């Protein structure tokens, strides 16, 4: 059943990649603001028409 060790290795590897991603996200401030992002996605980025002329 040596395959178990290989698969566990793969799973741990994936988990470590995810852990790395989590640390990066934490460090990058991705989790600092837990409210604004949920509202921001509702806003569309339509170009502002030049109406001043």
């Amino acid at each position, binding site marked *: *059943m*040596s*395959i*178990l*060790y*290989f*698969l*566990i*290795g*793969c*799973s*741990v*590897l*994936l*988990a*470590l*990649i*995810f*852990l*790395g*991603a*989590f*640390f*990066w*996200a934490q*460090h*990058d*401030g*991705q*989790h600092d*603001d*837990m*409210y604004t*992002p*949920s*509202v*921001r*996605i*509702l806003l*569309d*980025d*339509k*170009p*502002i028409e030049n109406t001043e002329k």
Partner: protein
Amino acid sequence: MQPEKFYYDNKIVRNFGIATIVWGIIGMMVGLLAAMQLFKPDMNLGNQYTTFGRIRPLHTNAVIFAFVGNAIFMGVYYSLQRLLKARMFSDLLSSIHFWGWQLIILSAVATLPLGLTTSHEYAELEWPIDIAITLIWVVFGINMFGTIIKRRERHMYVAIWFYIATFVTIAVLHIVNSFELPISAFKSYYLFAGVQDALVQWWYGHNAVAFFLTTPYLGMMYYFLPKMANRPVYSYKLSILHFWSLIFIYIWAGPHHLLYTSLPSWAQSLGVAFSIMLIAPSWGGMINGLLTLRGAWDKVRDDVILKFMVVGLTAYGMATFEGPMLSLKQINAIGHFTDWIIAHVHVGALGWNGFLTFAILYWLIPRMYGTQLFSKKMASFHFWIGTLGILFYAVPLYWAGFTQGLMLKEFTPEGLLKYPNFLESTMRILPMHVMRSIGGAMYLTGVIVMAYNLSRTMLQGKLISNEAAEAMPLEKMSDYYGETRHRFLERKPIQMMIVALVVILIGSAIELIPTLTISSNIPTIASVKPYTPLELEGRDIYIREGCVGCHSQTVRPFRSETERYGDYSKAGEFVYDHPFLWGSKRTGPDLHREGGKYGNAWHYNHMMDPRLMSPGSIMPNYDWLISQKLDTTATADKINAMRKLGVPYPDGFEKIANADLNKQAKAIADDLGKNGIKVKSDKEIVAVIAYLQRLGTDIKVKPANK
């Protein structure tokens, strides 16, 4: 700083959307055909290309990778651009991704009915297609990460995290489950055998559900549901929490597909424990979705799109509650191998994946075409007939599953099997199979109505191929971090350590694979011998015909099974099985102890027309096995390949393999002749009979007088 003007690519989203609809209808039609074959054998249409064994993988591949796959790319390409405030990284890569994926699907449509299959569920496609999938997946990855790098929004919304997890995990799973040794252009053997192969397959199989049918859809839910309801997600914090916990826990739930098999029991328990833990993060997603609609339920009453979302989320909640329950050993003992599992996956597939896809299509298409939906009434009809279809599909199958699971376990007061003939349980559930296909047909009707409705919508509008948008460019990292920049350097050792660890692990894994596989293939049961060349050829026909779709080859250690089939299966019996053929469903009886149960003539007649030997059987006829000549040109290559994988054929055996094959075939043909059946020894049926008669006999105690 000046805002930058740019354009979102809607054309690629539209293309994936159309592909989703077209493949959805095709995949579901094939599913309906397969469903009808399960109560009316005539629906196998009397030819080998449309028998259940070959059609079933076509159905699963079409709905998973063609319907859901295209829907994922549609949702990702639409939401990713808007969440990152950037056009996709490269239009060329988008286009390669789209056409490459459609070609892969077409190659599946071409190869699966021909019987070109690896037999691993949801990974049936042969090795050249596996390579193509890997390449296209990499194209998708480059395109996605390229877009992330050139984004104009520093914060990455939770949906993007789900997409990233999907990409990374599917890549690893697909590669590990595609370790195959090619023999010819469309035939290969898996590197691993027996129990090990089973574990790899279900490690993949379950995570395919997790990271192809679940995480991308959760990501899409987190973008589209707030957009549809025009209100923020209930709790952004919860979404982050359940994302990280979900991806950490999901990866090791696979062994719950192998409960009571010869997989080491600690690995089984590990699978059960992780499956139970999964309830929390799964329900986190469902609750977050449903609560997003708090205070907006009046909208649900009027808006058919939100109705689809609510039913979809509810189906997700039900399926992710039922999954952990089914992975409890006591419940699994009844449910496994029965229609219960088919009902379970279809609640997830039809409800969660299907309904979310429809909702997104109804929301996206009018928007991208600058128009309104052609008919709200038709969409409403689709919703109701689809919901009823799910109920008509799932409820009868739950019923069928309980009925069959319990019947097969029932003993009389005297301690004998109450239903010793497996067929009795099959006949009892046929009405439920009829009901199920009615449910499926209702669901499909809804999809066809949607296709018409959306085509009319597209015709009355005009595609906005490039949608203009404006956003501020991203600040430079140094400005962004300002004073805290030195902290980045401080953290570097930790990052370095993680990177180093990852690199080391990759290296050792690559180094370990060959050593591990070879040493582990040493047989643990001395009486278990490799297949003879004829049996090996017969086994490959068994794989080609998809017999594994209806017949398991693993007897669980229950008295009800050892009484019915024979001694329970041991790990050491499967060491030469590249691939393993344990199966996951018993539409017919288990075959692991089939060898020697019936005479050769019985098998011959049964294959020609199963109803001759078992009146009422729903197995298709396999009469072409009688007329087709066995192809023995690759026998030597097969023996060589097997030897490379650790099967101890003596040196030079490949040279005399076909002579050995002919000798064994002649003996079987002679025996058939004695029973009044005239058949040439070079027909495929002879090889199949040889294989079936070998099954499970190696460890049978032979009577002393024989």
